[in-house]
């Protein structure tokens, strides 16, 4: 149903407020607790050198350890939330997410392969993109060649591509040096920001930011694409150009997230659904809103993951524990009839 403009403004105000609160809380809590007041003080003047001893330690913890991690969580959520909503729109399919169609596991394989060969650096991101694109291309090709436009074939093709790349990931793990590289690959693949650094943030965040801005900018075009290929042609627009841009930028965004955070499932699937229930299905509002909800979701999950036990709990585990029940509820509530 149409939501009023006032309702949408209220949504933006509330989410932004929650995000700000979560941002400060995430920087404050952890093994070394900092008072929220001090967090704000440090953020207001990050270059301060004359801080008293205790605050000087807090400054270092926040600026060098927590801030890059929090920024990666925020932008990881933006990237996954926006790409998930875009995928569901352009494929006219509410069961689709970057994870379901194979982009995530393709990127995961590419990045793992690059880590194995080159170690950490820019290469995992590049390989992640290339193999993510290959996975998406394969899923799309299978679905198209089947000659049907059916939701089922597309999802099944995604499942197959996913399983293939999962096997390839296992092959990488099998080959990896069990002393050094294997543990870091395994841990990263389960989804983790525990090795976040400004260096990783500097590689991933610009890519995610630009891709997401492009996708959100194209939100009217995404409304158009969701009418289906023939209807778009009938309106005098060639769908291939905008479709290609949309797929390239979603894959760029997802592979950048995967290369720093590993395989974090569920966010790209669940966030757009939750957001759609609040702001409605029009991508004009859904895309910016999914960016905010995704950022909040990812940040809360990551902060929980590093604070509820002595050791970091991998993100993939937490998102599945939260995402699966939410999705089950959505599935039952929809009574088998999905409306985008």
């Amino acid at each position, binding site marked *: 149903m149409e939501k009023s403009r006032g309702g949408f403004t209220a949504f933006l105000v509330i989410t932004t407020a929650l995000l700000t609160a979560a941002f400060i809380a995430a920087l404050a809590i952890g093994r070394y607790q900092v008072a929220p007041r001090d967090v704000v003080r440090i953020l207001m003047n990050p270059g301060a050198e004359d801080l008293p001893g205790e605050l000087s330690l807090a400054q270092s913890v926040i600026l060098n350890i927590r801030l890059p991690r929090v920024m990666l969580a925020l932008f990881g959520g933006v990237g996954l939330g926006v790409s998930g909503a875009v995928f569901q729109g352009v494929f006219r399919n509410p069961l689709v997410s970057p994870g379901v169609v194979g982009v995530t596991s393709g990127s995961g394989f590419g990045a793992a392969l690059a880590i194995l060969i080159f170690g950490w650096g820019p290469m995992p991101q590049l390989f992640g993109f290339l193999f993510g694109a290959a996975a998406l291309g394969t899923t799309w090709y299978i679905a198209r060649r089947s000659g049907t436009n059916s939701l089922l074939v597309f999802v099944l093709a995604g499942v197959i591509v996913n399983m293939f790349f999962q096997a390839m990931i296992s092959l990488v793990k099998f080959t990896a040096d069990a002393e050094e590289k294997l543990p870091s690959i395994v841990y990263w693949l389960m989804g983790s920001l525990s090795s976040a650094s400004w260096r990783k943030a500097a590689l991933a965040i610009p890519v995610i930011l630009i891709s997401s801005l492009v996708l959100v900018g*194209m939100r009217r075009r995404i409304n158009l694409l969701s009418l289906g290929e023939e209807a778009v*042609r009938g309106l*005098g*627009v060639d769908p291939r150009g905008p479709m290609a841009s949309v797929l390239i930028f979603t894959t760029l965004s997802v592979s950048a997230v995967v290369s720093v955070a590993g395989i974090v499932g569920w966010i790209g699937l669940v966030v757009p659904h939750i957001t759609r229930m609040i702001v409605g299905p*029009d991508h004009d509002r859904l895309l910016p809103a999914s960016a905010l909800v995704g950022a909040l979701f990812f940040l809360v999950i990551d902060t929980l993951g590093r604070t509820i036990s002595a050791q970091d709990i991998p993100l993939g585990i937490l998102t599945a524990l939260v995402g699966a029940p939410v999705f089950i509820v959505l599935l039952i509530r929809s009574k088998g009839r999905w409306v985008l």
Partner: protein
Amino acid sequence: MKISLTDASFAYNPEQLVFRDLSFQLDSGQIMSLIGPNGCGKTTLLKCLVGIRSFSGGLLELDGKAGPSDSDRTRLFGYVPQLAGDPVPYSVEQMVLLGRARFMGPFSRPDPQDIAIAETSMEMVGITRLADRGFHSLSGGERQLVLIAQALTTGATTLVFDEPTSALDLVNQHDTVDLLRRLSHDEGYTVIFSSHDPSHALHISDQCLLMDKTDGSRFGPAEEVITEAELRRVFGVESQVIRHERKGQGTSMGVLPILKPYFKKTGKAG
């Protein structure tokens, strides 16, 4: 737009011919109907015409210019597809505005002029009151009107409708047929539509293309093509052409199909 099609054919591959040797000529502002049995290729012909698909052979001339490209045709024709599939949940106004998409860049939003054009289209088909409703929440007849308004918003002056009445009840069929007529007679649009109902074709169309699975397609003025003999030949169905005059209001034309006769049971009830 003046349209001339000569010996057109379409085949998915050499073994799978859908139609061939189809020809028609239509003057600007006229209405052409397209009738024929299921599977004779009506939808495919319309898709080829508007540039969603490409003809395999034949010559198409639009206002005297031969061989317009597929993408030119998608812009010259406004296309209203059959109602099918799960409807998208956008608002009616948003749906109609999507008709302006070809004038907009990938990042731009509708400007006041686009919105004014969309409002005019909605007014023309009488759906202004539905502007804020969700497309998916509408009835079949209302959805059909939204798609017509969307096609009008593209600015095309030739409109192509694929079975605009097939999903509608009696009164909505009547209203849609009359809307097509008004678009041509009052607003000057050139209209092409396919239908399963020869009455609709006979009632409003100037020209009719009667398609047949074999090589028996015929084209001509509707009253010459839609006859009892031709309907028997192509559909194998008996029928009666009806002409209904109403004083001071003009003429209605119709076709009454004569269903297979049988003997009614005459026993008393109870």
